[in-house]
Each structure stands twice: as structure tokens, then as C-alpha cells.
């Protein structure tokens, strides 16, 4: 029996009288363990031949912050994906050339995602990075504008040539895909740091009760709820706290004035129609092993109104929440699950979610746990990656 008596260790600490640690069973410790370790090992993306390439990473960084790719020369990726806010914008829904209908997600830990966008309309990071450049609601860009922006600045021009072996040319059918692959190469380097939860998990694993006890008691109780009665880990699984798939938690999918967001159902359609998916010619992985998910997809009626199960890391940086940004705080999210309206779940939808009817104290515990999945110190804005020698 592997039992860790945190409470016992706490008794030895001078100021912890009011602090009652949870006593996790061996089975619980095992279930906690699957949410780590963190960070995950990084491997290059086989579908992107410039993944991990220093020139592409620098180019991608510079383009991410460059508003000249957009139609009005005012919107950059960073306008919505603000590095000071976990690469999100704090708005209900993103605002580019016009206001969109979905919440802007943060961009940490992208290398470990299978699907991109709330509807999983992309199966790879570079095609998800190309969409906003061309989307008339976001940046409204085009190849000629992108080529001009690249050629007008010597560092951009040089890093493009260093990464792709040719100069940027508006007539090159690969130009936009290459630019998107460079931006992807930079975004892949954005990995969020270890959190109080990760430290707790690691301490449990090495049976270090003293370090484990530094994890607040409320977060420990919230963790137990998350794994147990809440059944949250069924979907929010693994080190990312997401199984990478899609679900329906009864969020409304109506869009003002009278539209609907079909969620995953529309995402599958967009994905399969997209020449930049992994089944297409731009996938750089000759084995096509990375296209398994797309190749074997099975559309189902229930996909209507399903949205991607978001990662729960860095939540304190990325309010508001949900695909439509309709919940402003983690308290509201927990209230949603606590008072869940089962009639809102689709008839053939999940039978996992039940209203949890949490007490005030339990709700606060669950919020404390969710907060512990974010870094406890402010994140520095990432510095520009170094220029490659030939471009200095």
C-alpha cells in the first residue's frame, strides 16, 4: 500500500495547524500521475520540414508580430494572441478586421495537439496558422502582400531564404504554406512552465511529503473532486488535461442574430475540404503516419455542437472561457458544471455529465485546483530567437 500522509508531514511544520492535507490512496496517486510529467518531451513535427529549424523559428517569430501581412496593415497574429496574456486577447470573441464568433485560444503547448481550432478544422499547426492570414474576417492577407512584406525587410528575406533555399516570390505556390510553416515552427517552441500541480505530482511520485504539503489543501480537495465525483478527467485527461478530442457540455451554440455554430460537424467538413490537410501534397512526412487521425475520421450526428476539449493549463491567463467566451471566470465554469442543464446536452450526446450540485466550499476547492494548473509567477514575454549567422 502506497499511502502518503501529507497531514502527518504537516504536523511537523510550525504554522500549519489550520491546514489539513488530503490522504490520497494508491489508486488516486496513480490517477494523478497520468497528468504528468511536465513538460513533455519535444520532438520535431514530421509534417513540417522546417520544424526545429533556427532560421524558420526566427522568421516565424518576426512574422507573428508583423501587421503588414494583413489587409489594413494593422492586424498581426499578436493582436489577438497577446504574449502578455498567454497568447490570448481577454475578449469574449476575437476581433480582427471584424469581430468573430469564437474565443481566441492561448497558444502554449501546441506541439502536443492533434486538432486545431475549437472545431478541429485543422489537423496540423501550419494550416491553422495559414487560415487567419487569409481569412477576410481576421487579417485578409494574400500572397502578393506577404511576399512584399518579406522582401522589404532584409532579416525576413534572409531568414526565408535560409529556411527554404529560395527567395520569397509571390508567384511561388508554396510561398504561403512556407510562411505558415515558419510561423508554426516558432509557435511550437512555446511551452508553458511547470505549475504548483506539477510540483505536487512530482513530489507524490517520489514520496516527498514535505514538498507535497506545500500544495494548498483546497487545491488537493479540488483535485480529488476533479478525478472522482466530477469525472472531469474523463475528457480533461493526461498531461495537457485534454484528450484532444471533442465533447458536448451543453454550452449554447447559437450565434447572434440567428446563426448556429455547428462545432465539430463543420470542422470535419472544413478539414476534409482543405488542400492543406495532412492527406494533401504539403504534408512533409513521406510516411503519412501523421495523417492517421484524418484518414480514419468517422463523422457522427453527435458531432453537431461538439467542441474541442480545451487544455486546462494556463487558465488564469486565458479568461474568458469556452468556445464562445461566454463564461467570464473559473467560478462561472464550475457553476456551469455544478448546475448543468441536462436538457441542453444532445439526445445522443455524452452521458458522463450530471449536475454536480457542489456546495460553496466544494466549488471554491475546484476553482483552487484549476488555478493550480497555471504557473504561479508571471510569464516573461518570449525574447526574439537569435538570428542565424548568415543573416546577422
Amino acid at each position: 500500500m502506497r499511502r502518503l500522509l501529507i497531514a502527518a508531514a504537516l504536523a511537523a511544520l510550525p504554522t500549519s495547524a489550520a491546514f489539513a492535507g488530503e490522504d490520497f490512496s494508491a489508486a488516486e496517486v496513480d490517477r494523478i500521475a497520468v497528468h504528468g510529467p511536465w513538460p513533455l518531451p519535444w520532438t520535431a513535427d514530421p509534417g513540417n520540414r522546417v520544424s526545429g529549424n533556427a532560421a524558420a523559428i526566427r522568421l516565424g517569430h518576426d512574422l507573428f508580430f508583423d501587421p503588414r501581412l494583413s489587409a489594413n496593415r494593422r492586424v498581426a497574429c499578436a493582436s489577438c494572441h497577446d504574449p502578455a496574456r498567454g497568447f490570448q486577447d481577454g475578449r469574449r470573441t476575437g476581433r480582427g478586421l471584424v469581430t468573430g464568433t469564437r474565443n481566441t485560444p492561448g497558444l502554449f503547448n501546441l506541439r502536443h495537439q492533434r486538432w486545431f481550432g475549437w472545431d478541429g478544422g485543422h489537423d496540423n499547426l501550419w494550416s491553422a496558422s495559414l487560415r487567419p492570414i487569409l481569412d477576410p474576417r481576421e487579417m485578409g492577407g494574400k500572397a502578393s502582400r506577404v511576399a512584399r512584406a518579406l522582401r522589404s525587410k532584409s532579416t525576413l528575406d534572409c531568414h526565408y531564404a535560409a529556411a527554404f533555399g529560395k527567395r520569397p516570390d509571390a508567384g511561388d505556390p508554396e510561398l504561403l504554406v512556407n510562411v505558415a510553416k515558419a510561423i508554426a515552427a516558432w509557435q511550437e517552441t512555446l511551452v508553458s512552465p511547470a505549475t504548483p500541480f506539477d510540483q505536487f505530482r512530482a513530489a507524490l511520485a517520489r514520496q516527498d511529503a514535505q514538498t507535497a504539503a506545500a500544495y494548498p489543501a483546497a487545491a488537493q480537495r479540488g483535485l480529488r473532486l476533479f478525478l472522482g465525483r466530477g469525472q472531469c478527467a474523463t475528457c480533461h485527461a493526461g498531461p495537457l488535461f485534454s484528450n484532444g478530442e471533442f465533447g458536448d457540455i451543453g454550452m449554447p451554440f447559437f450565434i447572434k442574430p440567428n446563426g448556429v455554430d455547428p462545432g465539430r460537424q463543420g470542422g470535419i467538413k472544413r478539414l476534409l475540404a482543405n488542400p492543406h490537410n495532412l492527406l494533401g501534397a504539403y504534408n512533409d512526412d513521406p510516411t503519412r503516419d501523421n495523417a492517421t487521425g484524418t484518414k480514419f475520421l468517422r463523422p457522427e450526428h453527435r458531432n453537431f455542437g461538439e467542441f474541442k476539449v480545451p487544455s486546462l493549463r494556463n487558465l488564469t491567463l486565458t479568461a474568458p472561457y469556452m468556445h464562445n467566451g461566454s463564461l467570464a471566470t473559473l467560478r462561472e465554469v464550475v457553476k456551469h458544471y455544478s448546475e448543468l442543464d441536462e436538457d441542453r446536452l444532445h439526445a445522443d450526446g455524452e452521458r458522463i455529465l450530471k449536475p454536480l450540485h457542489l456546495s460553496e466550499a466544494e466549488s471554491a476547492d475546484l476553482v483552487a485546483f484549476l488555478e493550480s494548473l497555471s504557473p504561479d509567477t508571471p510569464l516573461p514575454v518570449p525574447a526574439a530567437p537569435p538570428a542565424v549567422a548568415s543573416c546577422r
Partner: protein
Amino acid sequence: MINSRRWRYGEDLRGALVALALGVITSSAQAACPPDATDGAVLKAGELVLAYRPVLAGKPGRIPMAKHFALEVQMCDKAGVSIARLQKVDATMPEHRHGMNYRPLITPLGGGRFRVEGMMLHMAGHWQLVFEIQSGKEATRLTDDVQID
């Protein structure tokens, strides 16, 4: 004595013919009938025996959660290698009334062996693997309960 020897000889020949007909005789693809623990989990319905083994990134392993994996399937009957067809493989979560988000592809390898690609059990909990087998007019359904954490 003579009878039983003749029976075995006949079956060996039949197995070899089946393998020939399917054009697959490589030493590594040789059928192991009846299957044993090295062939994975063994399921039985009457005389039909099905063994399956999860394969991840080319190596045998446990069924992972929310990651794609393949299955190697071996089917045998009292004659040795079964000539039945593995028609369909699926997985459902009976309590949640839903199945997989992916439709797996079955490739016959000969010698009663099949490769099933594109499987993924995307949630933690109780899943049921379902194998549908067609032998002439006879359809057989084999299931196996698996717990994914």
C-alpha cells in the same frame, strides 16, 4: 491413430493452401494456431478463437488512452488457421452510449491474420471492443471489456 494423423496432415495442407491462396507466406507472418498469450488477449466463441494484440508505433503494448493504435488479430478454429473473415472491428462505451471518433480499416494478411488500423479510445473508462466475424453465412460477434485510464 492413423485417423488422427491423417486429420492433422489434411489440416496442415489446408492451412498451407489458404496461405498460398492469399499469397502470403513469410516466416514472420506464419500463423500461430492455437494462439497463446504471446498473441495477446484470447476470445472464444464455439470453435472460433480470436487473439488480438495492440500495437503502438510499431511495437506491441497496452491500449493507450486517446492515442491511435493498431491491432494484430489472429483467428483460428479447430482446423487450425480460420478462413473466416474479420468483417468489422469497433469499440463502444456502453455506459455513455457512444463509440469511437474513428472508423478503423481492416487489412487481411493471410494465415488468419488481420491488421486493424485507426483505433482510438478517446476517454477514460469502460470500453467494449467488438469483433464481427463472417464465416460463410454464419456471423459471429466477439466482445472484450477493457478499462482505460
